[in-house]
C-alpha cells in the first residue's frame, strides 16, 4: 500500500531525523520526502510530505512513534490511483452509451476514468475519444484495459492502447 503523509516539524535541528526513524523502525519503504522550508506554517512549523510504501497494519505503530517523537501528523492517506494509462477509442462512442463505458471502469473500485476528450464529426460518422485511466496498481491497469477491450468488442469500438515500454 502506498501512503502519503503530511507532517509538521518544529523548526529546530534534528527534527527530520526524528520523523524518519519510525519509518525505518517499521520497515516502511520511503518513496519520497519533500521538505517545504519555504512554506512555514503560521504555527512556525515546517511542513514535510512523505510518501511511503508499507503494510496497513504498521500504520498505527508509525503514527504512535511519530507522536512520541513530537512530530504531528496532519494528514495520512492512501495514494490510491498511482498508475495511469492513455487509451483512444474510435466508433459510435456516444450512441453506445458513453456513460456506461466510463461506469464499467469506475465501478471496479480500483480504476477510474480521470480525463475524457471527445471529438465528434457527423452524426453518422464514428467519433473519437481520448481516455486517461488511473488505477491502484499495474495489475489493476491491465484489468481495466481488459474490461475496456470487452466493452470495445460489445460496442464495436476500436480500442487503441499504448505500446508497452517493456517486453511482456
Amino acid at each position, binding site marked *: 500500500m502506498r501512503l502519503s503523509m503530511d507532517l509538521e516539524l518544529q523548526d529546530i535541528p534534528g527534527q527530520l531525523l526524528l520523523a524518519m526513524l519510525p519509518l525505518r523502525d517499521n520497515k516502511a519503504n520511503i518513496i519520497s520526502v519533500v521538505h517545504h522550508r519555504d512554506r512555514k506554517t503560521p504555527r512556525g512549523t515546517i511542513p514535510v510530505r512523505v510518501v511511503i510504501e508499507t503494510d496497513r497494519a504498521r500504520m498505527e505503530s508509525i503514527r504512535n512513534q511519530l507522536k512520541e517523537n513530537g512530530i504531528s501528523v496532519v494528514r495520512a492517506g492512501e495514494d490510491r490511483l498511482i498508475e495511469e494509462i*492513455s*487509451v*483512444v477509442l*474510435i*466508433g459510435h462512442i456516444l450512441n453506445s452509451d458513453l456513460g456506461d463505458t466510463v461506469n464499467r471502469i469506475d465501478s471496479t473500485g480500483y480504476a477510474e476514468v480521470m480525463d475524457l*476528450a471527445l*471529438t465528434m*464529426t457527423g452524426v453518422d460518422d*464514428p*467519433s*473519437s*475519444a*481520448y481516455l*486517461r485511466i488511473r488505477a491502484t496498481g499495474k495489475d489493476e491497469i491491465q484489468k481495466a484495459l481488459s474490461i475496456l477491450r470487452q466493452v470495445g468488442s460489445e460496442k464495436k469500438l*476500436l480500442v*487503441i*492502447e*499504448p*505500446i*508497452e515500454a*517493456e*517486453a*511482456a
Partner: protein
Amino acid sequence: MKDIKVSLVGYGVVGHGVVDVLEKKRKLLNDLGLNLNLVSISDHTGTICDPKGIKAEKVLGERTLQNVATSGMKGKEAISSVDSDLVVEVTPTNIVHGQPGLGHMEAALSSGKHLVTSNKGPLVLAFKQLRELADENNVEMRFEATVGGTMPLINLVQKTLVGNKILGIRGIFNGTCNYILTRMAEEGIPYTHALSEAQDLGYAEADPTYDVEGVDTAGKVTILANAIFDMDIKYSDVDVTGITRVTPEALALAREKGYVIKLIGDVPALTVRPTLVPVGSPIAVGSTLNSAAIYTDLSGTITVSGLGAGSIETAAAILSDIISIYRQ
C-alpha cells in the same frame, strides 16, 4: 575466388533490383572473394539461361523476359534443370497457398541449393517444413528481405545480438500503413484521402486490403515468431486489426496527449493493431519507414529503422544474405 552460380526466379520490381545490384556490386563481391554469375532468370513468360553469366544490360531494359527468354521453362523446371548453387526467389507473394514461391523454394532446397528470398507467403505458411528441408539437404535458407525490407532485423538478431535472449520485438513492418497514418496525422485528412494519395504515389496497391487490413504485417509477425522465437505458429494465430477505422480526429486527440498512432506488430504477443506510441519514441518513425524495437535480456532495447520496401533496397537485403552464406 569462389565461383557461385545463381538462379533468379521472379522478374518483377525486386528481380530487376537484384540484377542491378549484383552488377553494381561485382567488384565488391570480387574483393570478398566471390564471383557471382546469374546463370538463369525465370518469370511467368519463360527463362533466360547462360552458363557464363547473363549480362545485366541484356535484361534490365526488359519488363518481362518475353523477348529475351532462351527457353519456355518456368521457375520450378529451371531450378531443377539449371546447374546453380543458389536460388534467389522473388516471385509475388501469396499468403493463402504460397504459390508459386513455395514450389520454387521446395525445389531449390531439395535439390541442394541455397535459398535467398524476399517472398513472405511460403515462409508464413510453411516455415518449419522449409527449415527442415534446408537442414536435411545441408543448405542455407535466408530471408532477411521478408521482414522490414532493407532494415536489418533477422540477421541483426541472429548474428549480432547472438548471446542475448530476445524477449520481444515490436515495430512498424508496413510502409504503406505508416505512410497513410503519417499523412492523416500531419494533414488531418481522412483515411480514404490518405489512401488515394498513397495509391497515386505507388505506395499502395489498387487493392490495398493486404496492407491496410494488417495482413502483410501479420505475415511478418508470423515469420519473426517462427524464425526468431521458434514458435511454430500459423498466420491465423495472429490477432489482427488494420488501420481502416482510424480517424484523423483520433490521431489529433492522441497527438495532443503526446502520442502518435502506428500499426504495431508484436512478437511474441502475436498481435497486429493500431497502437499509441509516444511522440519521440525511436520506433515512432514517419513516412514509409519501418522500425523495430528488439527487447533483449543483456543489451536492453535496440531499435532499428529503415526503408521497408523498394527495388534496390530489397535487393540490398538479398545481397547481404547471399554474402553472409558464403562468408561463414
